[in-house]
């Protein structure tokens, strides 16, 4: 699986020209934000989608955004 994704390229759409960028993500370091927190999960969250987008562009990664409206600690409330 690692080999399959070793050459993963990341798309960045920039401005009205929708210019494509691409880069190898294998060597991308982890996010450098000092504000990451897992909130009891295995996922490292940054504070805002804006910050996530900025870091993803720098680190050649994609962005994951969670939209929530419940208590995820209790499956009965999600």
């Amino acid at each position, binding site marked *: 699986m690692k080999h*399959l*994704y070793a*050459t*993963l*390229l*990341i*798309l*960045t*759409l*920039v401005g009205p020209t*929708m*210019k*494509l960028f*691409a880069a190898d*993500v294998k060597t991308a370091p*982890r*996010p450098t934000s000092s504000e990451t*927190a*897992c*909130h*009891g*999960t*295995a*996922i*490292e*969250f*940054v*504070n*805002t*989608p804006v*910050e*996530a*987008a*900025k*870091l*993803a*562009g720098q*680190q050649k*990664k*994609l*962005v*994951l*955004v*969670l*939209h*929530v*409206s*419940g*208590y*995820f*600690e*209790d*499956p*009965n*409330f*999600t």
Partner: protein
Amino acid sequence: VNALANAEVGKFVNKYFVSSFQRVGSFQINKGQKQGGNVATYFCTPDGRVLHVIAGPVDAKAMLKEANWVIEKTKEAIQGSKGNAAKFKALMRKHHAESLESEFGVRVTPVLKDQIMQNLETASAYRDSKGRRLAPVLPLPPIENGKAVPAKSAQVHRLMAAHALMKIEDLYGAIFQGILGETVTTKPVQADTPFTKRKSG
């Protein structure tokens, strides 16, 4: 939340994604019954254009499957588009249509060019409880072989066959209200934590 707490999911997501969260609504307990409360997971480009979505809570196996799908199909689309953004968008929509047919037997024709979007003042819209327009209702591609689309993941593929690479703010209403059936009570807002009962760390 079980999927998000899974070590394998965390390793994979942290390797390929930078993650964040927003609140898009609230829920209430009325006579012991939950009203509202749900989750949607968006996989996006760094500028907030949506590649794929998981609608609702899933287990770790499903989360990994969908995250893998995003990485694999994005890689294929980048290689196939050779730097052309319009072609990249078309390829991602084709991938959604192909997955809809191969996994669920539902055939649709992907919408390869964006339709002219009406603005929120003129479009049919998802509204909050006070009637304020929050997000547009997005047209779905017609089903060509008469199959039903009961699974949420199938509904997502159908939606994304026409609207992949849209901005998350234009898509969230169709996911949270259109597919999950939850009332969108606010535009997405920042929150201190998505897991209000958990300790940070």
